[in-house]
């Protein structure tokens, strides 16, 4: 489904030394995989994901999506490819001026899909993510979990073949994280959608991914099935990431406690206990 070869990405830094964010990255992501990309902060995970829909232009190397090489496409062709690749963001990135309904309609609107068809699809998606009653709400009136459900519905609107998620659950509390991950997994099962998931939390990998690549300093240090990774971690960094998980299977991450807890007190308290 996605084939990445000798991908290299450097950023021009201030002064004459640039930053090499990715170096000789090779990856094969199969159709229907939930593929995790994990690694420490600054490893290049986001950069790698953003290269897959050309939000970041690779310095060299090639990326194939469904056999199409996307690095050399014209702007127009790239827009067509982008409609087949959905993206879900850590901070949701919803349009604050639009209702839930119109946010989900947005990608279809810009692809010129007729109104009646858009309406049908939006109703369908609202049902899929369980937000039928929020159609006319604005993003500011939603909890983090609900916002991310809108983000997911929006990403699925044009029936993409691939869904890219960059830390899609990192702004959510553990309980909401689980429900959003469950949603993603059911979408994967139901539609056979390929999902690429960037995270720095092993728990996320454990819960939904089938395959995983560990990256560090801009390079892939290990890749394979999630089971293998957990039972026979090879690289030091993988062992480190696994050690960071506590007994309950949650990442030890105190920064979670200051994040929002869906505004629901009982849930919030339970979530704090889980973080322990």
């Amino acid at each position, binding site marked *: 489904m996605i084939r990445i070869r000798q991908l290299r990405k450097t950023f021009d830094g201030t002064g004459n030394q640039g930053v090499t964010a990715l170096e000789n990255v090779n990856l094969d992501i199969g159709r229907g995989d939930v593929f995790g990309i994990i690694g420490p902060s600054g490893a290049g995970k986001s950069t790698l994901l953003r290269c897959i829909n050309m939000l970041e232009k690779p310095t060299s190397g090639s990326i194939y999506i469904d056999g199409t090489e996307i690095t050399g496409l014209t702007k127009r062709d790239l*827009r067509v490819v982008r*409609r087949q690749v959905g993206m879900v963001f850590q901070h949701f990135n919803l*349009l*604050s*001026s639009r209702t839930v309904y119109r946010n989900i309609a947005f990608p279809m609107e*810009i692809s010129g899909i007729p109104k009646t068809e858009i309406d049908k699809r939006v109703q369908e998606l609202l049902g899929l993510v369980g937000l039928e009653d929020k159609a006319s709400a604005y993003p500011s009136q939603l909890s983090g979990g609900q916002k991310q459900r809108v983000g997911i519905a929006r990403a699925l609107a*044009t029936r993409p073949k691939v869904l890219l998620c960059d830390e899609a659950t990192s702004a959510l509390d553990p309980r909401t994280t689980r429900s959003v991950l469950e949603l993603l997994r059911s979408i994967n099962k139901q539609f056979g959608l390929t999902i690429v998931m960037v995270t720095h939390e092993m728990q996320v990998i454990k819960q939904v991914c089938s395959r995983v690549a560990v990256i560090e300093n801009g390079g892939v240090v290990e890749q394979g099935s999630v089971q293998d990774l957990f039972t026979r971690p090879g690289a030091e960094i993988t062992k480190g990431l696994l050690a960071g998980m506590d007994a309950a299977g949650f990442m030890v991450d105190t920064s979670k406690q200051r994040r929002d807890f869906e505004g629901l007190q009982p849930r919030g308290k339970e979530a704090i206990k889980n973080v322990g």
Partner: protein
Amino acid sequence: MLVKALYQTLYMVSMSALISSICGMPLGIMLAITNDGSIAQNRTLNAILAFLVNTTRSVPFVILMVVMIPFTRFVTGSSIGTTAAIVPLSVAAVPFVARVVETSIREVDKGVIEAAQAMGASTLQVILKVLIPEALPAIIAGITLTAVNLIGYSAMAGAIGGGGLGHVAIRYGYQGFDMKVLAAIVVILVVLVQGTQLIGDLVIKKVTH
């Protein structure tokens, strides 16, 4: 007399607010999107536009009115009168609107723009469906501010033949020592400014979600 002056002031202010918004908006949008790192980065165009805007902004309004006389005569057929005053008022307000709109657009969340691009939006679609709607409350706040400033400027234009409240204030208040007229005009101007701000705030509230 005061009613007619009020009517003239309202006419000058609303027309020049309208014209400067129509001209300033596209200019502000161009300034914002040609900026480094924005969706249509273009250093040359940005520098040219910024130079034009800054030059116009740095000319004091009183001088601008005089400099503009030939142009005003060309556009309206006369260099004196209420309609003629609209020309320098609009020209003075365009760069102001442009800067306000530019700032509003630049404050739109980068992530939201990126999300639209990731969905395959073209540059024009990003402008029309993301930048303008998302920046709308800030843009309306800026246009309200422009209208308030124009009320002040229009009084100045009135002093040199544009008619309106400024004219009456100079003629009857300053030269004729009629304190009652002067006081009445101050009250009217205060009400006008407050009313403009009130309407602006109401509209902003309506478009903010």
